[in-house]
């Protein structure tokens, strides 16, 4: 009964994020200065631009893991015409609860925690992580073991009770942690950098599957074949602002983009 009722509902609209009058500077140098930017019009959007353009900083501003000098970031969980949640007024740890999740460009890991630990941490609900809850490990594990092992097998991880060894393994772990949070708006900062080709393929496949189920994805990637392959729309960022947006084909053809960033060889 319940399942039937669910199936008949139209799929929930994709969430969108609006960045308004957002400025960020480091020691007096303006790094991001965006008047207005809406993300999430399309299921998968690429964000490209030269090194130092401010892509990572913009993503960190959205997560509020770096404070904004001014401006606001608003999440519209069911599209831009619905109600908004001002993300820039919330602390970082509240983002995950609203489905806003980001992977990291530089490798981030918990030393001392094993692969399995790291994934169980991601899935554990807050109510199980209280000082008085000291008998809930099995419950947390049983609730999520199937999902966790699905990912572990998909990426052919080694023994999950071991520590993540290579940089690639840590990078993948970061992505899997993000996916386990069941994101509704996923920001990926160079997710496939340093990964071998077959793993890049697998990550791309997961991103496509996720987008197909209504999650909005924004991806920064230096490997432009990933961008042309995945994105429905591309934002081109330079000197702290999105200066151009369009379909992958349009952006690829554009003279400015080619001169400033891509060079003839990439196209």
């Amino acid at each position: 009964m319940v399942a039937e009722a669910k199936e008949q509902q139209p799929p929930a609209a994709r969430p969108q994020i609006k960045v308004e009058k957002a400025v960020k500077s480091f020691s007096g140098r303006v790094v991001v200065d965006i008047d207005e930017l809406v993300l999430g019009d399309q299921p998968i959007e690429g964000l490209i631009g030269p090194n130092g353009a401010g892509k990572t900083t913009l993503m960190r501003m959205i997560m509020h893991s770096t404070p904004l000098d001014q401006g606001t970031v608003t999440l519209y969980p069911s599209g831009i015409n619905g109600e908004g949640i001002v993300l820039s007024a919330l602390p970082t740890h509240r983002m995950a609860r609203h489905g806003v999740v980001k992977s990291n460009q530089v490798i981030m890991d918990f030393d001392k925690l094993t692969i399995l630990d790291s994934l169980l941490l991601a899935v554990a609900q807050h109510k199980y992580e209280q000082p008085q809850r000291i008998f809930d490990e099995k419950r947390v594990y049983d609730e999520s073991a199937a999902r966790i092992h699905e990912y572990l097998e998909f990426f052919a991880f080694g023994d999950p009770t071991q520590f993540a060894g290579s940089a690639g393994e840590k990078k993948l772990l970061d992505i899997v942690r993000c996916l386990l949070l069941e994101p509704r708006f996923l920001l990926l900062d160079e997710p496939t950098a340093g990964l071998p080709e077959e793993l890049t393929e697998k990550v791309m496949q997961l991103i496509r599957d996720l987008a197909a189920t209504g999650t909005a994805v924004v991806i920064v990637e230096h490997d432009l074949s990933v961008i042309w392959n995945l994105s429905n729309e591309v934002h081109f960022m330079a000197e702290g602002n999105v200066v151009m947006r369009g379909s992958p084909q349009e952006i690829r053809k554009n003279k400015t983009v080619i001169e400033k960033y891509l060079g003839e060889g990439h196209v």
Partner: protein
Amino acid sequence: MNLDWLDAFLISGLFSVVIIIGLGLLLHLQLGLARIANFGVVGFFGIGMYAFGVMFVKVDWPFSEVWAFFISLAFGTLVAGLSGLLVGWLIADLDEDGVLVGTLGFATAVLILATTEQDLTGGALGLGGLKFPYDIGSVKANEFLWLIIVTTVVALILLYVGRVHRSPYGRLLIAVGANEPLARSLGKPAFRTKLWLFAVGSAGMGLLGALFGVMVRFLDISNLGIDVTLAAMVALVLGGTARVWGAVIGGFLTIGLFEIVVQSYIPFPQGWYGQAIPVVRQMVFGATLIVVLLFRPLGILGDMRRDKLMRSMHGG
């Protein structure tokens, strides 16, 4: 009960060992897992001791002494927990230096308060009138029973710490200690986590302080010195900061060796006991801390072994 075989020295020596182990275990949750170096252990210990003592001695209780005892004990624990909440709130966002200054400053403030609030605490003269919540005969028998009770409490703390390692809560503490920004981005409220860790740890330290006060039956500001913090820290660091049993092993090897073996069996000149021995002890502990940190920073037991633990819980 015939307790002739039991030396009063041994009881008080063992009691010190047990108290320091208890404090070391609570410190382990903060320092070993969440990597917050709390240098104010004695402050929470002292606040629990004095809140309990003042409540028990100064209030004109309308009901039996046993009730008064347990209400005062709960009060001491609660006050220490609340002070932990306050200190935690002050330091949770500070860097290591800030935490050091903040916690050390708190312990100093407790000592100053206990000294200056003479009407309540007796100041430098001390506060008498504490007693055991029972009387089973000789002083020695009462003290021995109290040793057993407090050992049980500390064993329960050990059990709790062991469970924390095997629970999602322990994993959260380790994660917050290892990489706080990453933990936050995974939705973990790092600030609140540290706050409650401090509240719970401090309540436990306060309880131990009150239990200690009962044993000595006379509250004296000399019990509020930095040497308590130092002893708990040396015990933990020597045994293994990140390990459940670190404080236990370290406690026996430091306080245990010093208080029981050295003091009882090495024939120091009689005159040394009052003045010289505590100073020697402090110097030995300080030196131990330095040597351990230089040559075996993870202590005798070494580093946390999450891989082993995960295999035992979820492997196969």
